[in-house]
């Protein structure tokens, strides 16, 4: 998957036009940009600052403060491994190590082919399924080292078939 650095301004305007020009919508707009572009492109930061008439630095500080936002493109599939307490004591670290090994990326990074990003999250509130992992909003409960390999291979096969 190639990463395209130029952005579609029509898409961006469509997002902005949904919101009134009020500061309180900054986070909501950034969330929409993140969903649409899979990251917060630099151009979008400048554009949004102008639209809301607030300094670029403020948008930048928002984009770096909130974990849901990323200044670099995220992978096609986002793997979230829960490291809440219940998952931690049922061995979530073993899962994280396994994924690091399998994909050769650290938490917060994206694979070279742009297929996966790995994120560690603090409690998804699905403690009964501990240890739990979520890929693109699909939950995988009671995960083991062995099951991880299977799941990741499914996504790989789907992408390269």
């Amino acid at each position, binding site marked *: 998957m190639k990463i395209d650095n130029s952005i579609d301004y029509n898409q961006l305007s469509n997002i902005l036009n949904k919101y009134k020009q009020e500061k309180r919508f900054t986070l909501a707009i950034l969330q929409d940009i993140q969903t649409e572009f899979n990251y917060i492109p630099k151009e979008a930061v400048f554009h949004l600052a102008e639209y809301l008439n607030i300094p670029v630095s403020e948008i930048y500080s*928002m984009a770096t403060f909130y974990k*849901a936002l990323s200044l670099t493109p995220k992978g096609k599939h986002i793997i979230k491994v829960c490291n809440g*307490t*219940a998952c931690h004591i049922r061995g979530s670290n073993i899962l994280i190590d396994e994924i690091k090994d399998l994909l050769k990326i650290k938490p917060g990074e994206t694979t070279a082919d742009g297929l996966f990003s790995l994120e560690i999250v603090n409690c998804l509130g699905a403690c*009964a399924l501990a240890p739990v992992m979520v890929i693109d909003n699909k939950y995988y409960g009671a995960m083991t080292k062995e099951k991880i390999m299977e799941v990741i291979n499914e996504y790989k096969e789907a992408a390269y078939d």
Partner: protein
Amino acid sequence: MIKENRKILVCCGTGCLANNSYDVYTQFLEKLKNTNIEVIPQVKATGCNGLCEKGPVVKILPDEISYFKVKAKDVDEIVLKTILKGEIIDRLLYFDLNDKKRIVSHKDANFYKHQHKIALRNIGEIDPKDIDDYKKRDGYKALHKALFEMTPDEVISQIEDSHLRGRGGAGFPTGNKWRTCSNYNNNPKYVVCNGDEGDPGAFMDRSIMEGDPNTVIEGMIICGYAINSNNGFLYIRDEYQLARKNMQIAIDSAKEHGFLGKNILGSGFDFELEIVRGGGAFVCGESSALMASIEGNVGEPRAKYIRSVEKGLWDKPTVLNNVETWANIPPIIINGAEWFKEIGTAKNSGTKVFSLVGKVKNTGLVEIPMGTTLRELVFDIGGGIIKNRPFKAVQTGGPSGGCIPAEHLDISLDFDSLGNIGSMMGSGGVIVLDDTTCMVDLARYYMEFLSEESCGKCTTCREGINTMLNILNNIILGKGKLEDIELLESLSETIREASLCGLGKTAPNPVMTTLKYFKNEYMDHIINKKCPAGVCKNLTSYSIDKEECIGCGACAKKCPTSAIIGEPKKPHIIEQDKCIKCGSCFSVCPTGAVKIGGALIESYNK
């Protein structure tokens, strides 16, 4: 066996959904469409039933039959046997491990028997997307009563008299908050719902927002009426997608039914409600940070010289309550303060929802009267520890709370008792720990969590937590020194004193309480270079006791690195240079012959 008003309730909370309960739901719809039944039962996708461990859960009413771990392929059989003939399918019933028997109705199961549901009263019973379901169970009756039979002042008095305390953690009296806010005449005022549930191990708010969103909305409108506010915000955590979806559906239908918007039910009172999606920052669960986030700022807390009831959102008087608190408002208005006070203890009226997780048999959501003991919660309701291992402690209150050791098992679960022993109620997460949980590692885990989530505003919190984390990391690696203990204690003191918000002030709690109750574990790590729980890899080794080993070979089969050798029926040994200390042999050994030792100094073939 045709029954009128028959209902099939399929749990579609996050836990059950992950186990494919939606397939079960659609399979029921499909099957019933093609079956020749005179009275077709209603099939409903409900919110969480609590016992997520045994999901997907299917309940059949009015027969009161509950099936657990139901798969889509079981649906045919359920329709054929249970719906058509009234037969019970034994294998799908709840099996009580301790009593060794199957139970037909979930209401007879120990997990549910001791519960008293107020905040969770509708969850699992209604389709959260259908406002009529909510209305059939007294929904919006409290709003009607408040608007037409009570003055705003009477509403506040009712909440004051009920002694309801904020369920978000601090336990501040809700009525006081409303009263103070109502006394300020600085409009507009705001009503805010804190749905930024972030404590690891707590998911009651998610469950309420997903399973009964209307009760939260109703509670907020009543507050708006009481304090003279026309605008409310629901701040919902970024990770809770389903909660946001169900909440939005509920807001839209409440508008259609005239419960929200202009001139509610013809009373002349207006109230608008809006969802704000969080950005994935734990600190935003702190009220002033949450408000900053709604305003479109970075979620940093501020000093609270002036309380938010006077100057909150956009510096206007604001009442902020937690999801579970809002869910308690409608029943109190309908049934009255006296009814509420009869439940729980004198200073802690009502119930509390706990999420019981960790090394406990029945993981799930539990609502019990305040004052229930920890022992009842863990052993009667929770069914005890997985594999009947020894109970070590529980951690309550998330990263701000502390651990409670076995000697305090008979403590009453309420705000004051938990505070007295150095822990706190928090949002109600109860994480059960057994002998295979390392308390030093647990403290380290929370410090790591907090070091990532500290917003960085206060130096003590930003740098102090990091320093504590480094010290704990060293102890775990076997590089700990005796003076580290003292250093941890003095850092704790400083962070507690000099940080601005709740996150920093309570951050040292996990370290302080583990030091208080489990100092010997720290000492074992520092002096004996041993992790008694076998968690810290550098300080652990496994060996097999020759006398106790029966040579069954279970460990050798399980060992991922083939480090265990031995002939059948003869004592086995572990080749230490191959061992990766995963602990598989320890958990699989039927005779307890695998022993946990400290860091290895002697060679394995000695």
